[in-house]
């Protein structure tokens, strides 16, 4: 059948990806957007986001940014919810292993590019590293004003009154700001920016970070950036200063304090433990001999091991 032969041909062609999947023209277009994003910290640069072989909303923005910057000698770390082993992180890491053949790692320190969804690693990043965020809704004002035409004007006029009103209403109603993730920041004293749905616990890490931060929103077709050492302030009020989440207990497995913890339900009788959301950080600490209060618990064995039982 000629048709079948033709399809087999075209499928075969599909196997022969360009390095990192994207064609060179697309990479150039994304690269130009990245450069403008870096030159205008916190401003969302529109770009002609491509359809990717994974669904919109599943990291297509981050994947396009990573594909555009990635080189043969890079070492890539892919995390989702702080962990290298979450399903989508595994899937996206596999995508780059297959299409770019680059070295991948779970170790934060070893990576030159880290693509992340919803977390920033606990270990401070260096100037040699690049952090790529997957962003679902890049517009920090979107839930206050759904229209792009309006929010674009607000950014142009630096008119962020709406955001302050929202935060103030939070305080009036709850006594404190009720935003726990995707907590808005002001970059370089100019643009209000959405740091993607990372918990606000991670906001201080964004401020004056040594690594370059690139944010990619595929479905919404926006790229933005924060250059190294850039001043990034979480929005707040003088009498209600910004504060991050506090955990009462250290990590149950490695005993780390001052890290973001996930709550793990152990049984149906209220049993739960808190463990590092950054799985690489936790493993490294345990390898160094740090033990948390629940490390010996049989339940911990199930959570903390890499291989399924």
């Amino acid at each position, binding site marked *: 059948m000629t048709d079948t032969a033709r399809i087999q041909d075209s499928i075969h062609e599909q196997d022969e990806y360009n390095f990192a999947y994207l064609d060179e023209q697309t990479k150039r277009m994304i690269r130009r957007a990245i450069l403008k994003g870096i030159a205008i910290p916190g401003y969302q640069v529109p770009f002609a986001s491509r359809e990717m072989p994974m669904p919109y*909303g599943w990291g297509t923005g981050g994947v396009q940014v990573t594909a555009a910057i990635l080189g043969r000698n890079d070492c890539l770390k892919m995390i989702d919810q702080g962990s290298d082993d979450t399903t989508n992180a595994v899937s996206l890491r596999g995508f780059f292993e297959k299409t770019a053949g680059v070295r991948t790692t779970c170790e934060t320190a070893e990576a030159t590019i880290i693509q992340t969804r*919803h977390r920033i690693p606990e270990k401070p990043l260096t100037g040699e590293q690049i952090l790529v965020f997957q962003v679902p809704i890049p517009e920090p004002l979107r839930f206050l004003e759904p229209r792009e035409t309006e929010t674009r004007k607000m950014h142009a006029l630096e008119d962020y009154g709406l955001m302050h009103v929202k935060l103030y209403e939070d305080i009036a109603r709850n006594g404190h700001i009720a935003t*726990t*993730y995707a907590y808005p920041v002001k970059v370089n004293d100019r643009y209000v920016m959405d740091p993607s749905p990372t*918990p606000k616990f991670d906001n201080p890490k964004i401020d004056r970070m040594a690594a370059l931060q690139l944010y990619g929103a595929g479905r919404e077709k926006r790229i933005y950036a924060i250059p190294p050492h850039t001043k990034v302030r979480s929005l707040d009020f003088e009498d209600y200063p910004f504060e991050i989440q506090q955990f009462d207990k250290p990590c149950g497995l490695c005993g780390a304090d001052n890290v973001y913890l996930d709550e793990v339900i152990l049984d149906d009788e209220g049993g739960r433990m808190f463990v590092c959301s950054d799985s690489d950080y936790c493993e490294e600490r345990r390898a160094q001999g740090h033990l948390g209060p629940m490390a010996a618990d049989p339940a911990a064995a199930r959570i903390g091991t890499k291989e399924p039982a």
Partner: protein
Amino acid sequence: MYVAVKGGEKAIRNAHKLTAKRRRGDTSVPALTLEQIAQQLSHSVARVMGEGSLYDETLAALAIKQARGDLIEAAFLMRAYRTTLPRFGYSTPVDTGAMRIERRISATYKDLPGGQVLGPTFDYSHRLLDFALAAEDDGVLRTAETAESVDEAMPRVTDLLGDEGLMEPDPVSDEDTPVGDLTREPLSFPADRDLRLQNLARGDEGFLLALAYSTQRGYGRTHPFAGEIRYGEVEVEFFAEELGFAVTLGSIKVTECQMVNQFAGSARAAPTFTRGYGLVFGQVERKAMSMAMVDRSMRWQELGEEQVAPAQDIEFVLSHSDNIQATGFVEHLKLPHYVDFQAELDLVRRMRAEWFGRREQQEEGEAAPEAAQ
């Protein structure tokens, strides 16, 4: 637990194997061939080509087979494939006036040059399950009387109306005006009609249907008449710079719908009929009609109308019409979100504690005066 252990990779591999197995179903039943899908599920194929934005029946059939008949998933496969194809240029505008017609109807004239050609349609059929088909019988395969395409010239109904001055002229843009392409430049607002039509042509049939329906029920009424719906084959031509003339690349089947809308006129424009336009791959009349109606609704500003309804709201319509985007974002909620959820858990616990604290204080406050009495 589907995260937190290195089993992720293995779990994904197994899930995909299982999907492949489920897709195939009972192996004692013969597998579908692409020819069967392309021939016998042609409406599905047309929808997948349109929303997948790539005209190729065989690839669409493959996508449908691979997607187990999930048409949005199939359109997504087409889009992801399309984006890897090199682009040689843009075709010259397709001349639907020169269409080799298989079906052509007008609801506005009883008879007209070229006549009404009912052609293949579900219209006027009685929706009774045909149990003969269930018996894998070919059923009533009588040769239709005019199965061949009609050669007679068929002027567009809107052109007939235009001759009388009753129809707004078809807005003709300057030859040099570049036609927008939302796959090359991100959509920005306000969006012109070229980009709006491109967006609608790729848009979700169900979404456009619902919007069109809402205008009929009074949410931005536009008084539409189906001026003409035509379905058939048109040639696609490409202007080759090297040759200096256009060459035919092939032909495609399309459905075109021209809605004719009553228009009372405004301070700016005399009363006249106005247009809504729909053009889609294959025979997808429901989509072509819906597209034409929504196109007309979105022209409110140009015609000096008021914006009162969702179907008129260009930014709203264009931002939510793409089912590949929509399904991706809706379904991404299946991804783990436990980091954000943890943040919310913490907040809700804290706010509840505060709420109960306040209530307790209040109750004590209320109880105290009673005690004093």
